[in-house]
Protein backbone atom coordinates (compact mmCIF):
# COMPACT_ATOMS: atom_id res chain seq x y z
CA UNK A 1 0.00 0.00 0.00
CA UNK A 2 2.82 2.37 0.88
CA UNK A 3 4.50 1.59 -2.41
CA UNK A 4 1.28 2.48 -4.24
CA UNK A 5 1.01 5.76 -2.30
CA UNK A 6 4.61 6.67 -3.06
CA UNK A 7 4.05 5.87 -6.74
CA UNK A 8 0.99 8.09 -6.83
CA UNK A 9 2.91 10.93 -5.17
CA UNK A 10 5.74 10.58 -7.65
CA UNK A 11 3.26 10.72 -10.54
CA UNK A 12 1.58 13.76 -9.06
CA UNK A 13 4.94 15.48 -8.50
CA UNK A 14 5.95 15.09 -12.15
CA UNK A 15 5.24 18.26 -14.18
CA UNK A 16 2.06 18.03 -16.28
CA UNK A 17 2.40 17.17 -19.95
CA UNK A 18 2.60 20.17 -22.29
CA UNK A 19 -0.64 20.95 -24.18
CA UNK A 20 -0.89 19.41 -27.64
CA UNK A 21 0.86 21.46 -30.33
CA UNK A 22 -0.87 23.43 -33.12
CA UNK A 23 -3.42 21.45 -34.99
CA UNK A 24 -2.59 19.29 -37.93
CA UNK A 25 -4.26 19.86 -41.29
CA UNK A 26 -6.80 17.15 -40.76
CA UNK A 27 -8.06 18.65 -37.49
CA UNK A 28 -10.98 21.08 -37.42
CA UNK A 29 -10.19 24.77 -36.99
CA UNK A 30 -10.41 26.53 -33.64
CA UNK A 31 -13.69 28.31 -32.86
CA UNK A 32 -14.40 31.53 -34.82
CA UNK A 33 -12.89 34.69 -33.33
CA UNK A 34 -15.67 37.26 -32.92
CA UNK A 35 -15.20 40.49 -34.82
CA UNK A 36 -14.18 43.51 -32.74
CA UNK A 37 -15.71 46.33 -34.75
CA UNK A 38 -14.76 49.96 -34.30
CA UNK A 39 -16.63 52.56 -36.34
CA UNK A 40 -15.90 56.19 -35.61
CA UNK A 41 -15.76 59.65 -37.08
CA UNK A 42 -13.55 62.39 -35.61
CA UNK A 43 -16.44 63.69 -33.54
CA UNK A 44 -18.51 60.61 -32.80
CA UNK A 45 -17.99 56.98 -31.95
CA UNK A 46 -20.66 54.58 -33.21
CA UNK A 47 -19.12 51.24 -32.30
CA UNK A 48 -16.02 50.60 -30.22
CA UNK A 49 -14.77 47.03 -30.23
CA UNK A 50 -18.34 45.84 -30.61
CA UNK A 51 -19.29 42.33 -31.58
CA UNK A 52 -21.30 42.48 -34.80
CA UNK A 53 -22.12 39.89 -37.37
CA UNK A 54 -21.40 41.68 -40.65
CA UNK A 55 -20.48 45.09 -42.01
CA UNK A 56 -21.02 46.23 -45.59
CA UNK A 57 -18.66 48.98 -46.72
CA UNK A 58 -18.46 50.96 -49.97
CA UNK A 59 -14.84 51.26 -51.09
CA UNK A 60 -13.02 52.64 -54.10
CA UNK A 61 -12.58 49.11 -55.42
CA UNK A 62 -16.21 48.16 -54.86
CA UNK A 63 -18.62 47.32 -52.06
CA UNK A 64 -17.96 44.30 -49.95
CA UNK A 65 -19.19 42.74 -46.75
CA UNK A 66 -16.92 41.92 -43.87
CA UNK A 67 -17.62 39.04 -41.50
CA UNK A 68 -15.53 37.69 -38.67
CA UNK A 69 -12.23 36.14 -39.77
CA UNK A 70 -12.22 38.13 -43.00
CA UNK A 71 -8.86 38.16 -44.76
CA UNK A 72 -6.80 41.17 -43.60
CA UNK A 73 -7.02 44.14 -45.91
CA UNK A 74 -6.70 47.92 -46.14
CA UNK A 75 -9.25 49.89 -48.12
CA UNK A 76 -10.29 53.45 -48.71
CA UNK A 77 -13.98 54.38 -48.36
CA UNK A 78 -16.05 55.98 -51.09
CA UNK A 79 -19.09 58.15 -50.32
CA UNK A 80 -21.88 55.69 -49.66
CA UNK A 81 -23.79 53.68 -47.13
CA UNK A 82 -22.21 51.51 -44.43
CA UNK A 83 -24.60 48.84 -43.18
CA UNK A 84 -23.93 47.18 -39.84
CA UNK A 85 -25.70 43.88 -39.11
CA UNK A 86 -25.79 43.28 -35.37
CA UNK A 87 -25.66 39.88 -33.73
CA UNK A 88 -29.46 39.72 -33.60
CA UNK A 89 -29.81 40.55 -37.29
CA UNK A 90 -30.92 44.19 -37.09
CA UNK A 91 -29.30 46.35 -39.74
CA UNK A 92 -28.29 49.95 -39.13
CA UNK A 93 -27.28 52.22 -41.99
CA UNK A 94 -24.88 55.14 -41.90
CA UNK A 95 -23.85 57.47 -44.68
CA UNK A 96 -20.10 58.03 -44.84
CA UNK A 97 -18.21 60.61 -46.86
CA UNK A 98 -14.76 59.08 -47.07
CA UNK A 99 -12.28 57.34 -44.86
CA UNK A 100 -10.49 54.06 -44.40
CA UNK A 101 -11.25 50.45 -43.58
CA UNK A 102 -8.74 48.16 -41.92
CA UNK A 103 -9.25 44.47 -41.27
CA UNK A 104 -6.53 42.88 -39.17
CA UNK A 105 -5.52 39.25 -38.83
CA UNK A 106 -7.05 38.97 -35.36
CA UNK A 107 -10.50 39.89 -36.68
CA UNK A 108 -10.45 43.50 -35.51
CA UNK A 109 -12.07 45.86 -37.98
CA UNK A 110 -11.66 49.63 -37.92
CA UNK A 111 -13.85 51.81 -40.10
CA UNK A 112 -12.70 55.40 -39.72
CA UNK A 113 -14.89 57.85 -41.59
CA UNK A 114 -14.24 61.51 -42.05
CA UNK A 115 -17.95 62.27 -41.78
CA UNK A 116 -20.55 59.71 -40.81
CA UNK A 117 -24.21 60.28 -40.09
CA UNK A 118 -27.24 58.11 -39.55
CA UNK A 119 -29.66 58.12 -42.45
CA UNK A 120 -32.33 60.07 -40.59
CA UNK A 121 -30.07 63.12 -40.49
CA UNK A 122 -30.21 63.45 -44.29
CA UNK A 123 -32.74 65.26 -46.45
CA UNK A 124 -33.48 64.07 -50.00
CA UNK A 125 -34.55 67.46 -51.34
CA UNK A 126 -31.44 69.19 -50.05
CA UNK A 127 -29.29 66.41 -51.51
CA UNK A 128 -30.91 66.80 -54.94
CA UNK A 129 -30.44 70.56 -54.98
CA UNK A 130 -26.82 70.18 -53.91
CA UNK A 131 -26.30 67.69 -56.71
CA UNK A 132 -27.61 70.15 -59.30
CA UNK A 133 -25.39 72.88 -57.91
CA UNK A 134 -22.36 70.59 -57.99
CA UNK A 135 -23.02 69.56 -61.61
CA UNK A 136 -23.24 73.17 -62.71
CA UNK A 137 -20.09 73.96 -60.77
CA UNK A 138 -18.23 71.21 -62.56
CA UNK A 139 -19.34 72.52 -65.92
CA UNK A 140 -18.18 76.00 -64.98
CA UNK A 141 -14.89 74.93 -63.42
CA UNK A 142 -11.82 76.42 -65.05
CA UNK A 143 -8.68 74.77 -63.70
CA UNK A 144 -7.83 71.22 -62.73
CA UNK A 145 -8.05 71.66 -58.98
CA UNK A 146 -11.48 73.29 -59.13
CA UNK A 147 -12.66 70.64 -61.56
CA UNK A 148 -11.48 67.88 -59.24
CA UNK A 149 -13.20 69.48 -56.26
CA UNK A 150 -16.43 69.85 -58.16
CA UNK A 151 -16.19 66.25 -59.29
CA UNK A 152 -15.82 65.09 -55.70
CA UNK A 153 -18.92 67.09 -54.80
CA UNK A 154 -20.85 65.53 -57.66
CA UNK A 155 -19.87 62.00 -56.64
CA UNK A 156 -20.70 62.58 -53.00
CA UNK A 157 -24.09 64.10 -53.80
CA UNK A 158 -24.90 61.35 -56.28
CA UNK A 159 -24.18 58.77 -53.62
CA UNK A 160 -26.33 60.71 -51.14
CA UNK A 161 -29.26 60.83 -53.53
CA UNK A 162 -28.90 57.15 -54.38
CA UNK A 163 -28.74 56.22 -50.70
CA UNK A 164 -31.87 58.17 -49.86
CA UNK A 165 -34.02 56.93 -52.72
Amino acid at each position, binding site marked *: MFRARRLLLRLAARPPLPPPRARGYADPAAGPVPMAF*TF*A*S*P*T*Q*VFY*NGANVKQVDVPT*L*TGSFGILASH*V*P*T*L*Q*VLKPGVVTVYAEDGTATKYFVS*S*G*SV*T*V*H*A*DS*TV*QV*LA*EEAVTMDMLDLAAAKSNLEKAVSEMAAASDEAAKAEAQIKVEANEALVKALE
Partner: protein
Amino acid sequence: MFARGAVVALYQPQWGQVRNMATLKDITRRLKSIKNIQKITKSMKMVSAAKYARAERELKPARVYGTGALALYEKAEIKAPEDKKKHLLIGVSSDRGLCGAIHTSIAKTLKNEITNLSNAGKEVMVVGVGDKIRGLLQRTHGNYLLLTFKEVGRRPPSFGDASVIASELLNSGYEFDEGSVIYNRFRSVISYKTDEKPIFSLETVAGSESLSIYDDIDADVLRNYQEFTLANILYYSLKESTTSEQSARMTAMDNASKNASEMIDKLTLTFNRTRQAVITKELIEIISGAAAL
Protein backbone atom coordinates in the same frame (compact mmCIF):
# COMPACT_ATOMS: atom_id res chain seq x y z
CA MET B 1 36.30 137.75 4.17
CA PHE B 2 34.50 135.11 2.30
CA ALA B 3 36.60 132.43 0.92
CA ARG B 4 36.63 132.83 -2.77
CA GLY B 5 37.30 129.25 -3.28
CA ALA B 6 35.50 127.35 -5.85
CA VAL B 7 32.28 126.23 -4.44
CA VAL B 8 32.22 122.66 -5.38
CA ALA B 9 28.78 121.30 -5.43
CA LEU B 10 29.20 118.18 -3.46
CA TYR B 11 27.61 115.32 -5.28
CA GLN B 12 26.84 112.53 -2.95
CA PRO B 13 26.36 109.37 -4.93
CA GLN B 14 23.75 107.16 -3.38
CA TRP B 15 25.41 103.82 -3.91
CA GLY B 16 23.78 101.97 -1.10
CA GLN B 17 20.11 101.16 -1.24
CA VAL B 18 18.41 103.93 0.62
CA ARG B 19 15.37 102.15 1.92
CA ASN B 20 12.79 104.64 2.95
CA MET B 21 9.73 103.31 4.60
CA ALA B 22 7.20 102.77 1.83
CA THR B 23 4.71 105.57 1.82
CA LEU B 24 1.02 104.93 1.96
CA LYS B 25 0.71 105.96 -1.65
CA ASP B 26 3.23 103.31 -2.80
CA ILE B 27 1.43 100.58 -0.95
CA THR B 28 -1.94 101.70 -2.27
CA ARG B 29 -0.61 101.69 -5.80
CA ARG B 30 0.82 98.17 -5.43
CA LEU B 31 -2.36 96.89 -3.84
CA LYS B 32 -4.48 98.23 -6.68
CA SER B 33 -2.31 96.71 -9.35
CA ILE B 34 -2.19 93.29 -7.70
CA LYS B 35 -5.96 93.30 -7.28
CA ASN B 36 -6.34 93.98 -10.98
CA ILE B 37 -3.99 91.15 -11.82
CA GLN B 38 -5.94 88.82 -9.59
CA LYS B 39 -9.16 89.70 -11.40
CA ILE B 40 -7.53 88.93 -14.72
CA THR B 41 -6.06 85.61 -13.65
CA LYS B 42 -9.35 84.56 -12.09
CA SER B 43 -11.26 85.29 -15.27
CA MET B 44 -8.62 83.50 -17.36
CA LYS B 45 -9.04 80.49 -15.12
CA MET B 46 -12.80 80.45 -15.70
CA VAL B 47 -12.38 80.75 -19.44
CA SER B 48 -9.86 77.90 -19.46
CA ALA B 49 -12.15 75.79 -17.31
CA ALA B 50 -14.96 76.19 -19.83
CA LYS B 51 -12.66 75.44 -22.76
CA TYR B 52 -11.21 72.47 -20.91
CA ALA B 53 -14.64 70.97 -20.29
CA ARG B 54 -15.42 71.18 -23.99
CA ALA B 55 -12.03 69.86 -25.04
CA GLU B 56 -12.27 66.87 -22.73
CA ARG B 57 -15.72 66.04 -24.05
CA GLU B 58 -14.46 66.12 -27.62
CA LEU B 59 -11.40 64.12 -26.69
CA LYS B 60 -13.36 60.94 -25.93
CA PRO B 61 -14.39 60.11 -29.51
CA ALA B 62 -11.11 61.49 -30.81
CA ARG B 63 -9.22 58.97 -28.68
CA VAL B 64 -11.13 56.05 -30.15
CA TYR B 65 -10.53 57.50 -33.61
CA GLY B 66 -6.83 58.00 -32.98
CA THR B 67 -6.20 54.55 -31.52
CA GLY B 68 -8.07 53.09 -34.47
CA ALA B 69 -5.81 54.95 -36.86
CA LEU B 70 -2.65 53.86 -35.06
CA ALA B 71 -3.79 50.25 -34.82
CA LEU B 72 -2.29 49.35 -38.18
CA TYR B 73 1.19 50.51 -37.20
CA GLU B 74 1.00 48.60 -33.96
CA LYS B 75 -0.52 45.38 -35.23
CA ALA B 76 1.55 45.16 -38.36
CA GLU B 77 4.62 46.24 -36.37
CA ILE B 78 5.88 48.44 -39.13
CA LYS B 79 9.43 49.57 -38.55
CA ALA B 80 11.59 51.63 -40.82
CA PRO B 81 14.80 49.91 -41.93
CA GLU B 82 17.81 51.11 -40.02
CA ASP B 83 19.64 52.63 -42.95
CA LYS B 84 16.93 55.14 -43.76
CA LYS B 85 18.23 58.64 -43.29
CA LYS B 86 15.42 61.14 -43.41
CA HIS B 87 13.54 61.79 -40.25
CA LEU B 88 10.68 64.16 -39.51
CA LEU B 89 9.60 65.52 -36.14
CA ILE B 90 6.26 67.21 -35.66
CA GLY B 91 5.91 69.17 -32.44
CA VAL B 92 2.29 69.92 -31.54
CA SER B 93 1.63 72.86 -29.27
CA SER B 94 -0.12 76.21 -29.60
CA ASP B 95 0.28 79.96 -29.96
CA ARG B 96 -0.58 81.17 -26.50
CA GLY B 97 1.37 81.08 -23.30
CA LEU B 98 0.55 81.23 -19.60
CA CYS B 99 -0.02 77.50 -19.54
CA GLY B 100 2.80 76.18 -17.43
CA ALA B 101 5.40 73.90 -18.99
CA ILE B 102 3.39 72.86 -22.05
CA HIS B 103 5.52 74.50 -24.72
CA THR B 104 8.87 74.05 -23.05
CA SER B 105 8.36 70.32 -22.56
CA ILE B 106 7.66 69.87 -26.28
CA ALA B 107 10.63 72.04 -27.22
CA LYS B 108 12.90 70.16 -24.85
CA THR B 109 11.89 66.80 -26.30
CA LEU B 110 12.36 68.14 -29.81
CA LYS B 111 15.83 69.44 -29.03
CA ASN B 112 16.86 66.12 -27.47
CA GLU B 113 15.55 64.17 -30.42
CA ILE B 114 17.33 66.46 -32.88
CA THR B 115 20.59 65.95 -31.04
CA ASN B 116 20.19 62.17 -30.86
CA LEU B 117 19.23 61.80 -34.48
CA SER B 118 21.95 64.11 -35.76
CA ASN B 119 24.52 62.18 -33.75
CA ALA B 120 23.23 58.97 -35.30
CA GLY B 121 23.87 60.49 -38.70
CA LYS B 122 20.28 61.03 -39.76
CA GLU B 123 18.85 64.06 -41.45
CA VAL B 124 16.18 65.74 -39.34
CA MET B 125 13.57 68.34 -40.09
CA VAL B 126 11.04 69.78 -37.65
CA VAL B 127 7.50 70.92 -38.22
CA GLY B 128 6.14 73.22 -35.54
CA VAL B 129 2.41 73.39 -34.98
CA GLY B 130 1.91 76.57 -32.98
CA ASP B 131 3.86 79.78 -32.84
CA LYS B 132 5.45 79.03 -29.50
CA ILE B 133 7.41 76.11 -30.94
CA ARG B 134 8.80 78.36 -33.62
CA GLY B 135 9.79 80.92 -31.02
CA LEU B 136 11.51 78.39 -28.80
CA LEU B 137 13.40 76.63 -31.55
CA GLN B 138 14.26 79.40 -33.94
CA ARG B 139 17.34 80.82 -32.36
CA THR B 140 19.27 77.63 -31.72
CA HIS B 141 17.74 75.13 -34.14
CA GLY B 142 16.34 77.45 -36.76
CA ASN B 143 17.85 75.58 -39.68
CA TYR B 144 15.93 72.44 -38.78
CA LEU B 145 12.54 74.13 -39.02
CA LEU B 146 10.67 73.03 -42.11
CA LEU B 147 7.18 74.45 -41.55
CA THR B 148 5.35 76.27 -38.80
CA PHE B 149 1.63 76.68 -38.35
CA LYS B 150 0.01 79.68 -36.68
CA GLU B 151 -3.46 80.41 -35.29
CA VAL B 152 -3.41 77.19 -33.30
CA GLY B 153 -5.20 77.20 -29.98
CA ARG B 154 -7.66 80.00 -30.58
CA ARG B 155 -10.49 77.69 -31.60
CA PRO B 156 -10.84 73.99 -30.80
CA PRO B 157 -9.06 71.94 -33.47
CA SER B 158 -11.13 70.26 -36.15
CA PHE B 159 -10.39 67.52 -38.63
CA GLY B 160 -10.09 70.23 -41.28
CA ASP B 161 -7.11 71.72 -39.44
CA ALA B 162 -5.42 68.34 -39.28
CA SER B 163 -5.95 67.75 -42.99
CA VAL B 164 -4.51 71.20 -43.81
CA ILE B 165 -1.38 70.33 -41.82
CA ALA B 166 -1.16 66.93 -43.47
CA SER B 167 -1.51 68.29 -46.98
CA GLU B 168 1.03 71.08 -46.44
CA LEU B 169 3.43 68.52 -45.05
CA LEU B 170 3.02 66.20 -47.99
CA ASN B 171 3.39 69.08 -50.46
CA SER B 172 6.45 70.47 -48.74
CA GLY B 173 8.76 68.36 -50.81
CA TYR B 174 10.63 66.84 -47.91
CA GLU B 175 10.62 63.10 -48.59
CA PHE B 176 10.86 61.73 -45.10
CA ASP B 177 11.17 58.00 -44.42
CA GLU B 178 9.86 57.94 -40.91
CA GLY B 179 8.98 60.38 -38.22
CA SER B 180 7.18 61.00 -34.99
CA VAL B 181 4.54 63.33 -33.68
CA ILE B 182 5.43 64.81 -30.28
CA TYR B 183 2.46 66.05 -28.29
CA ASN B 184 1.23 66.34 -24.72
CA ARG B 185 -1.01 63.43 -23.87
CA PHE B 186 -3.77 64.29 -21.45
CA ARG B 187 -3.80 62.11 -18.36
CA SER B 188 -5.91 64.06 -15.87
CA VAL B 189 -6.81 67.61 -14.89
CA ILE B 190 -3.55 68.06 -13.07
CA SER B 191 -1.24 65.91 -15.17
CA TYR B 192 -0.19 65.44 -18.75
CA LYS B 193 2.73 63.64 -20.32
CA THR B 194 4.81 64.40 -23.39
CA ASP B 195 4.34 61.47 -25.73
CA GLU B 196 5.53 60.35 -29.15
CA LYS B 197 3.64 58.54 -31.85
CA PRO B 198 5.31 57.17 -34.98
CA ILE B 199 4.46 58.02 -38.55
CA PHE B 200 5.84 56.31 -41.62
CA SER B 201 6.15 57.27 -45.21
CA LEU B 202 4.40 55.49 -48.04
CA GLU B 203 7.56 53.72 -49.16
CA THR B 204 8.35 52.43 -45.68
CA VAL B 205 4.86 51.02 -45.24
CA ALA B 206 4.75 49.54 -48.72
CA GLY B 207 8.14 47.97 -48.24
CA SER B 208 7.34 46.53 -44.85
CA GLU B 209 7.14 42.76 -44.92
CA SER B 210 4.26 42.45 -42.49
CA LEU B 211 2.10 44.31 -44.97
CA SER B 212 1.97 41.29 -47.22
CA ILE B 213 -0.68 39.65 -45.04
CA TYR B 214 -3.04 42.43 -46.05
CA ASP B 215 -4.83 41.35 -49.14
CA ASP B 216 -5.64 43.18 -52.33
CA ILE B 217 -3.79 46.45 -51.90
CA ASP B 218 -2.72 48.53 -54.84
CA ALA B 219 -0.44 51.54 -54.72
CA ASP B 220 -3.20 54.11 -55.17
CA VAL B 221 -5.29 52.73 -52.34
CA LEU B 222 -2.27 52.55 -50.07
CA ARG B 223 -1.32 56.14 -50.82
CA ASN B 224 -4.83 57.39 -50.02
CA TYR B 225 -4.87 55.28 -46.89
CA GLN B 226 -1.52 56.64 -45.73
CA GLU B 227 -2.51 60.26 -46.28
CA PHE B 228 -5.75 59.74 -44.40
CA THR B 229 -3.93 58.02 -41.53
CA LEU B 230 -1.48 60.90 -41.29
CA ALA B 231 -4.37 63.36 -40.96
CA ASN B 232 -5.98 61.10 -38.36
CA ILE B 233 -2.86 60.92 -36.22
CA LEU B 234 -2.43 64.68 -36.42
CA TYR B 235 -6.06 65.20 -35.43
CA TYR B 236 -5.66 62.92 -32.44
CA SER B 237 -2.49 64.66 -31.27
CA LEU B 238 -4.12 68.09 -31.70
CA LYS B 239 -7.08 67.07 -29.57
CA GLU B 240 -4.91 65.64 -26.80
CA SER B 241 -2.64 68.66 -26.91
CA THR B 242 -5.49 71.16 -26.60
CA THR B 243 -6.98 69.37 -23.63
CA SER B 244 -3.62 69.24 -21.83
CA GLU B 245 -3.02 72.90 -22.58
CA GLN B 246 -6.37 74.09 -21.24
CA SER B 247 -6.03 72.05 -18.07
CA ALA B 248 -2.48 73.36 -17.54
CA ARG B 249 -3.61 76.94 -18.08
CA MET B 250 -6.42 76.44 -15.60
CA THR B 251 -3.94 75.17 -12.99
CA ALA B 252 -1.45 77.95 -13.70
CA MET B 253 -4.04 80.72 -13.46
CA ASP B 254 -5.44 79.18 -10.30
CA ASN B 255 -2.00 79.25 -8.70
CA ALA B 256 -1.48 82.82 -9.87
CA SER B 257 -4.78 83.91 -8.33
CA LYS B 258 -3.88 82.21 -5.07
CA ASN B 259 -0.47 83.87 -4.98
CA ALA B 260 -2.06 87.22 -5.71
CA SER B 261 -4.52 86.78 -2.83
CA GLU B 262 -1.64 86.00 -0.50
CA MET B 263 0.19 89.11 -1.59
CA ILE B 264 -2.96 91.18 -1.16
CA ASP B 265 -3.40 89.91 2.38
CA LYS B 266 0.18 90.68 3.31
CA LEU B 267 0.10 94.10 1.71
CA THR B 268 -3.16 94.98 3.42
CA LEU B 269 -1.58 94.25 6.77
CA THR B 270 1.45 96.36 5.88
CA PHE B 271 -0.88 99.12 4.71
CA ASN B 272 -2.73 99.15 8.01
CA ARG B 273 0.48 99.16 9.99
CA THR B 274 1.86 102.01 7.91
CA ARG B 275 -1.35 103.96 8.27
CA GLN B 276 -1.24 103.64 12.04
CA ALA B 277 2.43 104.66 12.07
CA VAL B 278 1.65 107.78 10.06
CA ILE B 279 -1.16 108.75 12.40
CA THR B 280 1.07 108.20 15.42
CA LYS B 281 3.82 110.32 13.90
CA GLU B 282 1.44 113.17 13.21
CA LEU B 283 0.09 113.01 16.75
CA ILE B 284 3.60 113.12 18.18
CA GLU B 285 4.46 116.11 16.04
CA ILE B 286 1.35 117.92 17.16
CA ILE B 287 1.97 117.11 20.79
CA SER B 288 5.64 118.08 20.73
CA GLY B 289 4.75 121.25 18.83
CA ALA B 290 2.15 122.12 21.41
CA ALA B 291 4.57 121.27 24.22
CA ALA B 292 7.14 123.64 22.76
CA LEU B 293 4.80 126.59 23.12
